[in-house]
């Protein structure tokens, strides 16, 4: 289960990895939206759906860029990427999730993407790919800023247990 050597990515491969990253992020926000809807948290479901739409729009732009860049078939496989980069982790959600917590999770996910591209830039050898990675890094930084501003406009998050009428009790 070895991770593909990302230091050797060329321009097209990097674009395809970025598509995988956005695909997973969009899919994850969609799953979270469904989870909230199933558990009757309509407000959280709506917000997650908006975040999904945002990621899906970014994904569509990258896919269009890939189509324009080359007629060659996609060379990167879904499991060439073994880490979730921009998808918030499954464990970050709770059935009574609030707007504030959702933005915190989204900010953390975008920060993870920033860290990924920063780390990648330290290793990437191909010059064209490095230019593209810089573009992605700047985009992700803008997303962090945008989401942080939205998060900053909200009151502080209440602790998870304060929102739950019947909180789970640790057993250990």
């Amino acid at each position, binding site marked *: 289960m070895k991770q593909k050597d990302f230091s050797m990515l060329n321009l097209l491969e990097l674009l395809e990895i970025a598509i995988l990253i956005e695909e997973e992020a969009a899919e994850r926000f969609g799953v979270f939206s469904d989870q909230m809807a199933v558990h009757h948290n309509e407000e959280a479901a709506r917000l997650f759906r908006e975040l999904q739409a945002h990621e899906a729009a970014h994904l569509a732009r990258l896919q269009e860029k890939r189509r324009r860049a080359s007629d060659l078939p996609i060379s990167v496989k879904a499991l060439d990427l073994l880490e979730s980069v921009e998808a918030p982790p*499954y464990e*970050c959600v709770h059935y009574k999730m609030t707007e504030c917590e959702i933005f915190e999770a989204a900010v953390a996910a975008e920060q993870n993407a920033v860290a990924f591209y920063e780390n990648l830039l330290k290793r990437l050898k191909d010059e064209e790919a490095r230019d593209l990675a810089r573009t992605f890094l700047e985009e992700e930084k803008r997303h962090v800023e945008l989401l942080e501003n939205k998060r900053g406009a909200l009151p502080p998050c209440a602790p998870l247990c304060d929102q739950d009428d019947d909180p789970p009790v640790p057993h250990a």
Partner: protein
Amino acid sequence: MSTVESKTYRSDLKPVWCPGCGDFGVLNALTLAFADLALKPEHLSVISGIGCSSRLPAYIRNYGFHAIHGRALPVAAGLKLARPELHVIVTMGDGDAYSIGGNHFLHAARRNLDLTCIVMDNRIYGMTKGQLSPTTPLKDRTHTSPYGSIDPPLHPLVVALGAGATFAARGFGWEPRRLAALIVQALAHRGFSVVDVISPCVVFRPEDRTAFKGKLTWTNEAPETEDRFKAMARATSEKGLSLGLFFQKEAPTYEDAIKGEMEAAKQHPAPVRGLDEIVAALPGRGE
């Protein structure tokens, strides 16, 4: 972004698992693995027992069967013997696989049935609201062990390896992409493959939201050994929870043995005794 998208394997049903549950990651990993291997949905069958984990077949767009508690493996074995061309995947929870269905688990492993067994191990009975399971850690308090569990937990991979499983791996539900890579290997393996997946229950073991942070380490792609005992030692390392493939070995499957048996029966039919002969052989009759 493979030629087949993982979402094509998802049904329209929305999972009713609790938000945060590790089973979401297992579902994601399973569909990523199917897509990676470009498996046709009509060549896949997912069999489950009872429990949160066992809802999984409903969320996938292929054949499936929601069996009774602990009996997913016998159903899967019957299906595999009748339709050997299918990929038969068994999804169970720790209670289903290691307690109520523990006997079936042992015998499926020793027979080396060609099944892919994915156990979503949350270390508790979640669906029935938090009773201790065979993998609940010692001294943990649950609704059925209010003073702390007095039962030492079972080591799933040690049991699987001891019983004869030819593929033993452990993954983590919250790391779906790495788990998918393991499932790809399990699906490609011919024989009884066990993937024990740590799949946290955030409701009845809320401490598990953070319990695994910094404690999990992934091993390399290929198992370092074909020695079962060394693999057991690695799977139970005290240094932390190891994840990855611990053991893989090629061996004849039960399906191979059955075919051999059928050929032998065709060539050398067993002598059929007449009723008079059988009655005469009964104790007291021949005197």
